[in-house]
């Protein structure tokens, strides 16, 4: 009983400290854990992987720096996958703090695409990524609902120029590309309610294939849309990003973080079990004390 009494009065900061130590130790020690595939992630990979070269994949980078931890690895791995497959990428960023991060990701990936790399046993020669040819970054416009509706008519309506100020008509990639009918799919990587608008105002109205990359907090909420066929795939949180990295044979920050996740979750589960046992023991003790009186 004494142990559980002490446990119920334990300062929560000791739990924080213990969790920090577990996370840092598992981060420092290098080891691998297996990644189990979920069909809702694999279907996105298979869809993009099966596209013929030259097709356009639209990636909506709709998150702020506070969601960067979970969603930035998704952006990196999907855009790199597209470019290695010689697909073109059309990018928007409908979250106000997103354009800077999107620009950073594009510059980083353009650099890494210069190198020869082998993915899933296949060699991909390095090449120069050219703005306006391999990708077009539309940038940010406020009021995402209206922007999503506007792009359904013509991308030039909300975005006459790209993020860097070039008119869309002057970009080779955008010749003959007008609206969602001209893209193979839309992948919305989002950390907020913009996803609702992509489903309602985008997919529902214009009927294009839509896949979602979501933060962990949001993921469970969007599974009904997968069941109803309104979205064809979901990547949920860091796990979803690591699964895509595994499929694309391109391990990055997400896969690196999952081994820490494993042990952090184990610690949290242990604390939940111990806390509940302590709670019930405490309740039983009070009950006995009341009966004794």
């Amino acid at each position, binding site marked *: 009983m004494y142990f559980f009494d002490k446990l119920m009065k334990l300062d929560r900061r000791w739990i*924080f400290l213990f969790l920090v130590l577990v996370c840092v130790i598992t981060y420092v020690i290098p080891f691998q854990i297996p990644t189990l595939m979920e069909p809702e992630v694999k279907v996105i990979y298979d869809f993009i992987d099966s596209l013929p070269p030259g097709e356009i994949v639209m990636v909506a980078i709709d998150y702020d720096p506070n969601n960067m*931890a*979970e969603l930035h690895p998704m952006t990196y791995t999907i855009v790199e996958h597209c470019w290695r497959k010689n697909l073109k990428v059309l990018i928007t960023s409908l979250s*106000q703090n997103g354009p800077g991060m999107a620009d950073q990701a594009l510059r980083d990936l353009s650099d890494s695409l210069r190198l020869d790399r082998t993915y899933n046993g296949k060699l991909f020669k390095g090449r120069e990524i050219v703005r306006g040819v391999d990708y077009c970054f539309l940038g940010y416009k406020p009021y995402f*609902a209206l922007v999503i509706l506007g792009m359904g008519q013509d991308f030039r309506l909300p975005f006459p120029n790209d993020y860097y100020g070039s008119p869309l008509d002057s970009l080779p990639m955008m010749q003959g590309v007008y609206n969602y009918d001209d893209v193979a799919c839309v992948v919305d990587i989002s950390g907020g309610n913009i996803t609702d608008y992509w489903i*309602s105002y985008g997919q*529902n109205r214009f009927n294009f294939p839509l896949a979602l990359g979501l933060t962990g907090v949001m993921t469970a909420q969007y599974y009904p849309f997968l069941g109803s066929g*309104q979205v064809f795939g979901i990547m949920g*949180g*860091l796990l979803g990003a690591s699964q895509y990295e595994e499929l694309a044979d391109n391990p990055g920050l997400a896969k690196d973080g999952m081994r820490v996740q494993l042990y952090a979750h184990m610690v949290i589960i242990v604390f939940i079990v111990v806390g509940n046992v302590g709670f019930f023991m405490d309740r039983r003790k009070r009950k006995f004390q009341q009966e004794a009186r």
Partner: protein
Amino acid sequence: MEFSTFLWTTFGAFVTLATFSFLYKDNPFYKFAEHLVVGVSAGYFVIILWHNGLEPNLFQRLDDGSWYFLWLDSSRPWYLIPSLLGVMMWTRFSKNYSWVSRWPMALYIGIATGIAIPLEMANRVNKQLYATMSTIDWANFLGHGHFNLLDTASGLSQLLIFAGVISALVYFFFSKAHTGVFGGIATFGIWILMIGFGASFGFTVMARISLFINRVQYLDQNWIQNAFNTANENYSAWFQVVFWLIVLLIAGYIVRELVTYHKTKSKTT
């Protein structure tokens, strides 16, 4: 990495550690980081809105007009109408004229509602209802091809979704006492809801840990490794000086807190 870049990286590391210091208790470092984030976000948002909203959507479209004619001589003067509506919104700050702001507000809400209602009805109600009422796949009841309880397209999953939706709705039906068979269905509904909340909680835990992992990756890969990366062509002793200054600052704060804690403890005993 150049030294100036490393200084920014160090500042990022300092702000990261200052934010996490809140887990111990509220302190001036945390307050600084909190105010900085709010200030920078607001400032950044204003500039982004100016360059991506007002400038291309209003000023560039009226730029062939003259300000002394209030841009009425522009070839597209109708762009003045939304800008006027925008200005009318600001009358909310006046006690006497705040009623003026109701006009743009009414127009905005009217348009938004008109667009949203049919789309939301089709998206969140009709399509979800169709999916719930889909025919149960008896041929693949326990999974497609092989036994798989996690197969979301199996007949069992479809049956579970249907039963789960009905029982969860029954739980929220309060016009009849939750007793007998009705009570049993409502209890099953609670279990379904709890499983849903549990899934959300699990994902939330993963999200929060992900944020921490990302910061650890930043501190290690962007800050500590660069502080000791002698292979860097721009490397100098200043990299380590800055690094150790931050470490000393943190250590000093911890020592100060420990001393204060022991002083308070000895006073109370």
